[in-house]
């Protein structure tokens, strides 16, 4: 298959492996931002191809994982209401709230539907004018434009029974939070290729300068990641700190202007709470005043729900690269994909799920 096989080639992987080994002389800690990259790294054992002195830590770029428990509780409150059709990406359904998840709401008679695009949810709203249709807008800059487009169209078409529960978050503020932490150990970043497809990478340039940290825009296939790692290590070894693009087949420096435009028209930057991390200022997107009528939290009075994370789940530390999933006492025992304590164990992009699935093999614990 084109654009896939050539990036999963064993011979070229060995060449990259040798090249990285050649340039590495000192220990380095590098964080991949995106959960998709985390999964590729663990799935293909890319960390095992690296010199022992290079440590990979996994970043906050799993949209499901960073959505705080109180946002899930708000989703559950809205989804359980009579007459509501609650639409969500499939990933969100099994994320635990304080007491239950969205699949339990569905089992108890709530109309919870998996959609593939926010525009599908808008279509459902148009087909069911007597019902309230709510879309759970989750994700980073990658998915925000599509959510924005759905609300924008809803307003243009006058679809009053459509609204959004917005939990969108932004990557650069999270990176800044990690870099400015007193115990930060991340020395270089692989930036999330798909976020950069939308946003470009100019916004990473000030970060790279301010914190003297290399940031390499990286794709998701094994060779993409090895390429990104090679560039990152080379910068670190040479004492450079620049933004480089290792994903040129997809990402341009300025990103996708029309997508950014619709995002800016519909959303404004707001403070947002992150699971296990807490509130980060200017780290999320909320609806602008002129779209307030489409805000499900206001419409259904869910904005006052507050909840605390499970004290046993170390999602916050995992999401900031401070701990590996296997360093959690509950990993694979009290926390499994079947009975998760936190989102990183159930999300398809969660670091805990990746370690469980590709390294732990659940059956070993069942013996």
């Amino acid at each position, binding site marked *: *298959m084109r654009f*896939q*096989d050539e990036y*999963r*080639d*064993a011979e070229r*992987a*060995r060449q990259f492996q040798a090249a990285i080994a050649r340039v590495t002389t000192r220990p380095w800690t590098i964080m991949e931002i995106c959960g*998709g990259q985390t999964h590729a790294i*663990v*799935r*293909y*054992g*890319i960390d*095992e*191809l690296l010199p022992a002195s290079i440590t990979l830590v996994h970043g906050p770029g799993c*949209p*499901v994982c960073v959505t705080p428990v109180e946002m899930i509780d708000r989703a559950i409150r809205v989804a359980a209401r009579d007459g509501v059709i609650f639409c969500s*990406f*499939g*990933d*969100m*359904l*099994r994320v635990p709230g304080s007491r239950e998840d969205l699949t339990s709401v569905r089992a108890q008679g709530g109309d919870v539907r*998996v959609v*593939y695009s926010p525009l599908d949810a808008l279509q459902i709203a148009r087909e069911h004018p007597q019902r309230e249709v709510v879309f759970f807008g*989750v*994700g*980073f800059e*990658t*998915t925000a434009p599509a959510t924005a487009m759905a609300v924008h169209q809803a307003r243009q078409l006058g679809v009053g029974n459509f609204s959004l529960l917005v939990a969108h978050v932004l990557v650069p503020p999270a990176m800044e939070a990690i870099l400015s932490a007193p115990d930060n150990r991340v020395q270089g970043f692989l930036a999330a290729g*798909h976020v950069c497809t939308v946003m470009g990478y100019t916004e990473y340039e000030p970060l790279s300068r301010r914190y003297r940290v290399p940031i390499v825009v990286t794709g998701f296939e*094994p*060779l993409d990641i090895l390429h990104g790692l090679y560039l990152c290590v080379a910068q670190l070894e040479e004492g450079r700190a620049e933004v480089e693009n290792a994903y040129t087949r997809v990402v341009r420096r300025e990103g996708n202007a029309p997508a950014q435009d619709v995002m800016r028209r519909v959303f404004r930057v707001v403070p947002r709470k992150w699971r296990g991390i807490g509130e980060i200022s200017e780290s999320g997107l909320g609806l602008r005043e002129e779209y307030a009528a489409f805000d499900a939290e206001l419409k259904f009075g869910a904005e006052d729900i507050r909840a605390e994370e499970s004290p046993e789940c170390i999602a916050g530390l995992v999401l900031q690269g401070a701990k590996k999933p296997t360093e959690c006492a509950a990993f694979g025992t009290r926390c*499994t*994909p*079947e009975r998760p304590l936190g989102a990183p164990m*159930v999300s*398809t*992009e969660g670091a805990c799920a990746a370690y*469980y*699935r*590709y*390294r*732990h*093999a*659940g*059956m*070993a614990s069942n*013996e």
Partner: protein
Amino acid sequence: MSDNTDKHPPGPRSCPIPIAQYPHVMAAHGGGGKLMHELVRRMFVATLKSPELEAEHDGAVLPVSPGRLAFTTDSFVISPLFFPGGDIGSLAVHGTVNDLAMCGARPYVLSAGFILEEGLPMEDLWRIVCSLRDAALEAGVRVVTGDTKVVERGKGDGVFINTSGIGLIDHDLRIGPTSIRGGDVIVLSGDIGRHGIAVMAVRSGLEFERPVTSDSASVAGIVAELLAAGLEIHCMRDLTRGGLSSALVEIAHKARRAVHIEEKQIVVMPEVRGACEMLGFDPLYVANEGRFVVILPAAQAERALAIIRRHPHGRDARIIGTAVADERPIVTMTSRIGTRRMIDMLSGEQLPRIC
């Protein structure tokens, strides 16, 4: 066993229930009265034609030859009822027949229980019954007993079907995970993931340049030939829900042996790979309905492969791995880039991802 297919199927050539009178299934079609009798006789008995059904007894009375029997049951609740490459009727035969074949049995007879939802278009039921008949003919099995119920509108999903099957075993092999020996090889009968993606595509409105058709098929013919060739089959397993990985993990666990496979030997059609990339699925976990693995001594692997490949459903068969003696019961895979990882069973359902 597919030599029956070019004969004209028995039974009526068009929907036997007058459409003008009953365009949809009605509650009375399950009520035990005249309407029900008409439906049973004209739709089911006349179409599925077997001496046992035509006898219209309470059950089928069957002669049994010496040897062992295999007995299995499966229920089919698929939505949509019709999908590229099959429908709930053919699926209800393939699922049960393949389970019998995996026991090393020759499928002999089936039962078919239909739970119909009030309002189901009669024409749809007709198509489903015809498809079930054709699949049974192709698999060399006959429907000898059945049942029909009608549930209120909203209490079913069009139609649910349960089939149970009896198969005959006329060899002495002990086919099952505990017969697996270290050094045995694992042969996979074809490409994977097509059924799951074909169904998912209909549900989600995904479109492909070349449509993905389900792999739903009977593998009883292939298995019969493997057995007739005198191969020392240690274990067989069809890949259904949970896909290849769940089947292998189950086998490893039961056999208490490690299983090792090679990713590059596993054939996945480009459209299926593309859809999986987009939806965030792993083809190893996607459902199949006409694929199986056979595990047997290495020395016999090439012969098995040649037999499977002669069949249209087995063209992409490959040796994908080996069973290893005296190791922890885990499944590992060498990836395309040469690294090794563990394979776990599917947890919950595969849900489409965010981005």
